[in-house]
């Protein structure tokens, strides 16, 4: 993070006062601007008012829960969302990832881990100085960080965009889930491969003609994923 870059602004949606206060304290000390909301409704209102760069979202919220908040944000916005989940129980994580979250951390969360995840997610949206690539009707403009399909702009989250960029950088080459986790999510060696799977699903829904029979992003059995130029 460069010195002259603007300080990223976060929105923390967490109903528990103690956690909210503590995380706000910790994240502020890590150098973030933090706005907080105690419920999903407040969070959505603040999102419209303040346009933060990233949302840290607790799953267990009174009223509309974190998954629903996530889904509502995704209808209009592609900004990164990190889920705070109280359980690493699989169903929670899977539902969270399917509702559009970019990453998740399990409570009790360490401030440093959360900070690292936040920075990794933010880095995904950073521009590269590179050319563009074409895969059939799909055009990836790396310089402008845009993807068009049949001339139409696709609304991709930074994570989806980064995943597509990493795959398109090595067309025809299979990348393992662990490799993708390191490249895109900057996770350590123990990344959760479900992050990759969920993100691939969302990406396919946006870039493939028929998402259930993908022709661009192919699954390589026993290895991972591969971006194929269409025949």
């Amino acid at each position, binding site marked *: 993070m460069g010195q002259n870059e603007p300080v990223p602004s976060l929105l923390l949606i967490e109903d528990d006062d103690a*956690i909210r206060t503590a995380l706000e304290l910790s994240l502020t000390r890590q150098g973030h601007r933090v706005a907080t909301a105690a419920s999903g409704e407040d969070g959505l209102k603040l999102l419209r008012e303040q346009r933060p760069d990233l949302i840290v979202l607790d799953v267990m919220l009174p009223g509309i829960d974190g998954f629903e908040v996530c889904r509502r944000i995704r209808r209009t916005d592609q900004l990164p969302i990190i889920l705070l989940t109280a359980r690493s129980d699989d169903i929670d994580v899977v539902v969270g990832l399917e509702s559009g979250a970019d990453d998740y951390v399990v409570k*009790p969360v360490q401030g440093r881990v959360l900070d690292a995840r936040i920075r990794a997610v933010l880095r995904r949206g950073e521009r590269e100085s590179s050319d563009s690539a074409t895969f059939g009707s799909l055009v990836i403009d790396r310089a402008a960080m845009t993807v068009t399909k049949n001339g139409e702009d696709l609304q991709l989250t930074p994570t989806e965009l980064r995943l597509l960029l990493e795959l398109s950088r090595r067309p025809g080459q299979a990348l393992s889930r662990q490799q993708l986790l390191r490249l895109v999510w900057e996770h350590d060696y123990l990344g959760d491969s479900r992050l990759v799977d969920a993100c691939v699903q969302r990406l396919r829904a946006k870039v493939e003609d028929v998402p259930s029979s993908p022709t661009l992003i192919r699954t390589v059995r026993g290895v991972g994923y591969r971006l194929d130029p269409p025949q």
Partner: protein
Amino acid sequence: MTQEHQGESRGWSAARKGVWSRLRFTSLRLRLVVVFGLVALTAAVSASGIAYWLNREAVLTRAQDAVLRGFEQEMQNRAGALPEHPTQDELQHTAGQMANSSQRFTVLLVAENPEGRTVYGSSGGLNGFSLRDVPASLREAVTERQKITSNNKYAYHLYWQRIVDGDTPYLVAGTRLIGGGPTGYMLKSLEPEAKDLNSLAWSLGIATGLALIGSALLAQALATTVLKPVQRLGTAARRLGEGKLDTRLRVSGTDELADLSRTFNRAAEALEKRVADMAARDEASRRFVADMSHELRTPLTAITAVTEVLEEELEFEGGGIDPMIEPAVRLVVSETRRLNDLVENLMEVTRFDAGTARLVLDDVDVADQITACIDARAWLDAVELDAERGIHARIDPRRLDVILANLIGNALKHGGSPVRVSVRECPRGVGGAEGTEGPGAVVIEVRDHGPGIPEDVLPHVFDRFYKASASRPRSEGSGLGLSIALENAHIHGGEITAANSPDGGAVFTLRLPRDVSALTERDAEAEDTRGDGESPSGGTGGTRGEGAEGDA
């Protein structure tokens, strides 16, 4: 010592009891058969004995009466016509005539001829009937002159006797004409009657045998009807003992066995209810632990975030913290970390207990995983790794990391470095001999160079909160590490065994199947049967991800 002795003798007597009860069980059947057989035998033998005896008397008496009447007649008609002192020829002639009567007996006449000599007349020729064939007692009785009284009108009577010559029964009779005349004897074979009686005896014998066989069969059938409910009861009791608590007997009838079945059913019901109660209580306490560790997370999250701020403050050059308070802050920081680990482990354990733990599979290089695990914990200097790259397995990498971290961490803590980790492939499945076919197993061995594990501790190393020594009540670990490692191996269908190496030091051997997909596919089928767009069996990771396509 005495206790041991008692135990031994108890075991012996129990064994003897077992044999005894088996014997008794079979002898119940045997006893029934024997008793039935005896009853049938007695009844049949006495019935046929009486029948034989009565028949025999009736047959013999009838035959005998007819013969004797005929003989008497002949004596009066023929011998009475003879002169007082007949000649030999006359006697012989008369005897022949008498023998030609309807009864077909042989006759011997004895008289004195006019010269005073005794003469014989026999119907059977020279080899035939002679006086020698007549028993002496009979001769005496016949020739004895009796006093004439009011009760006894005649001086001589007809006497008879049954004799057996060779195998043939005969009737011998004799009498003397009153008022002088020859003494007559007759001999009649009873062979036809004996033959009839023999065949009757045979028939009765066969009937007795049939009755015996019938009674044995009947006893067998009865034993079966009595013993079958007993056997059913035995089977039901065994099933109950095997834990099938819903075992019940069908109650039919109102006899003692039905009563016993009812009692059994009541007992089984009570047992089932009690076990269900205990299971519910167990479940409740398990849920309590799960809920509690869950509730602990919220405050812990807040505390952890804040202690990190304090920690950074400590590390900050020129220290913003009062040196007097610094040890306190450090203690809070380290203990918060410990508490975090403990709660994390408790959560893990409750997930295993509740059966909600799931595998997230990925294809990994085992050697890379081990290197990464060691590297991440800065153990590179203390661990020797003997593993070739290229051993791939389809497992849950996070769970493998948990297992490795616990095994290696435990070895470092208790065994001392260098810890040696070796990996090899095993073509057989995890189960060894009963092994599953397929891709085989990966065997990871963690060996330390410490004093090893005491024999009495060895069976408990995987127990929760088991501390190797009572004098060391507080170890650095949570006391759950090895237990969690084992649960993680089990959920893969793998196994961890602990042993002492002959060269000293403890050896923990982890065996994991190389492809756990089969295990998780069953789970996945149960909870989620959505199709996969590209690869029909992409394992859990793939299946879950791919399956979402339809919804996306």
